[in-house]
């Protein structure tokens, strides 16, 4: 692949995939440490009907309607869980499982029946991501990076995920100490006067933001791997929180770039002509990183 082809077909998917992995891995560290990995799973499922809903109402897929739609469906999920728990008299875990999968399934059905031919939104992409199609058609080579006309043709998903990643990164840096203290010892954090509820909610909101923005890149199903695998692998590499977050960022970037590259060129090495799903490969690489860390990580004990 020459430079021009790379810029047109690979640069933007690589960037979007990397940023999406990063945006998910950063809050994922705190979800994993708080033993709330299931929250990441829940968020990734609830996001789908929200996005479909937003599309049905506005007819476009743009950032704010998607976020609002996701927020609305998250609220609905909470209400439904509480109702089922109360009236169905079943344990909260079961109520959550039922609500998330049911809402997700409803999202898939509605999506299947809606006319989404005009936009990048169909069932397969919603589930498995859309990374390969996020190409930069206006690019003619590396010089396009300084060409305002070509830059205007960059996929809007890139700006969305870029903004979300920057916001999450800044919040993480600004609230690092309260996040660390309240994650380790909530009671003590309260006596310091830290708003531990707001901090917990902030982590969930950041995760939801990341899930919505990463939706384009890796879809609803694989996004959970991006929340959990890099931080879980990172925990096995170090005994320090700062180092863990840094490792998780590195693993996220490796999973995204290696996964995308392997999906495009990997099958050819084995004599197959068809590329495989990029998101699938990204998720697989993330899982393999976790497996390697579990076997060889220095901080396993």
């Amino acid at each position, binding site marked *: 692949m020459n430079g021009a082809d790379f810029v047109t077909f690979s640069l933007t998917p690589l960037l979007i995939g990397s940023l999406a992995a990063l945006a998910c891995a950063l809050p994922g560290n705190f979800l994993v*440490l708080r033993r709330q990995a299931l929250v990441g799973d829940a968020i990734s499922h609830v996001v789908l009907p929200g996005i479909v809903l937003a599309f049905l109402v506005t007819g476009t897929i743009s950032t704010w309607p998607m976020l609002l739609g996701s927020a609305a469906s998250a609220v609905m999920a909470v209400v439904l869980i509480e109702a089922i728990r109360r009236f169905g008299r079943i344990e909260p875990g079961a109520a959550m499982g039922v609500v998330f999968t049911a809402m997700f399934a409803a999202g898939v059905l509605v999506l299947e029946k809606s006319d989404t031919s005009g936009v990048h939104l169909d069932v397969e992409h919603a589930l498995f991501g859309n990374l390969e199609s996020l190409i930069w058609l206006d690019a003619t080579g590396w010089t396009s990076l300084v060409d305002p006309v070509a830059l205007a043709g960059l996929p809007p998903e890139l700006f969305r995920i870029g903004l979300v990643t920057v916001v999450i990164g800044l919040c993480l840096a600004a609230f690092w100490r309260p996040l660390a203290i309240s994650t380790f010892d909530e009671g003590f954090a309260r*006596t310091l*006067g830290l708003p531990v509820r707001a901090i917990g909610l902030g982590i969930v909101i950041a995760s939801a933001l990341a899930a919505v923005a990463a939706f384009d890149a890796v879809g609803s199903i694989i996004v959970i791997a991006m929340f959990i695998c890099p931080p879980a692998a990172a925990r096995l590499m*170090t005994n*320090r929180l700062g180092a863990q977050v840094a490792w998780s960022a590195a693993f996220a970037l490796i999973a995204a770039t290696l996964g995308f590259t392997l999906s495009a060129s990997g099958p050819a090495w084995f004599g197959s002509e068809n590329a495989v799903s990029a998101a699938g490969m990204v998720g697989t690489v993330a899982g393999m990183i976790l497996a390697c860390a579990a076997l060889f990580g220095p901080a396993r004990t």
Partner: protein
Amino acid sequence: MQARLEDVSMRDMRERATQGGPLVIRGMTVAYDRKPAVFSVDASFRSGRITGIIGPNGAGKSTLLRAGLGIVKPLAGQATFFGTTLARSRDRVAYVPQRASVDWDFPARVVDVVAQGLYRRLGLLGRYGRDHDDMVMTALERVGMEDFSARQIGQLSGGQQQRVFLARALAQDAMLYLLDEPFAGVDAATERAIIKVLKTLRSDGRTVIAVHHDLSTVEEYFDDVLVMNVRKISDGPVGTAFTPEALETAYGGRLERGVRDPQKARA
């Protein structure tokens, strides 16, 4: 500048301490699932003393402490710190939670945990400098843990973890120390190290309140006691409040002379 501010706040602290005790609890009632854990407890803790909160398992000792600190929400009642609200006294109050209340597998070294005690000095983005490092090391030396500063907290023994928690509270440089079961499941060396620190705090004019369940050490460790079992049973100096009658009421038939609380045997 920093030093002068601290002088002012120290003086302020002493003035207030004479107006209201370090901790006054009024009508505290806490319930879990409608079952009262603490019922209408009034207590006033004396300044410059080591007070033990004594009672059997499930007597609501920890809950009383946690409700006073606003960690659990009481149904009724209030706690006053140094004659004012907790929100205005946070720099003067240090809390040592139960060791088992946190996950020691958390990715942190001993110094990282002790440095959490400096949060109110550092704030969100304040630079962690050499003098902060000195404060952390001083606190660790006071509990005899300076050689473990770079150790991952999960690799410590139970007693060492308890000392790290105490060091974090010492780094807060508070006037009132609230400890939840500081002697639960620790080795004898740790127990001696902790009580020595608590007595030093007392001789500095600070106040210590500790939830405790080992009846055999009460007279040795504490100046005052609060004996409770959901309700307050007695309080005051050990000589007058730590009586066989009070213990009989608190423990019912479960108390036998010379036998330690069963909680200790399990720990």
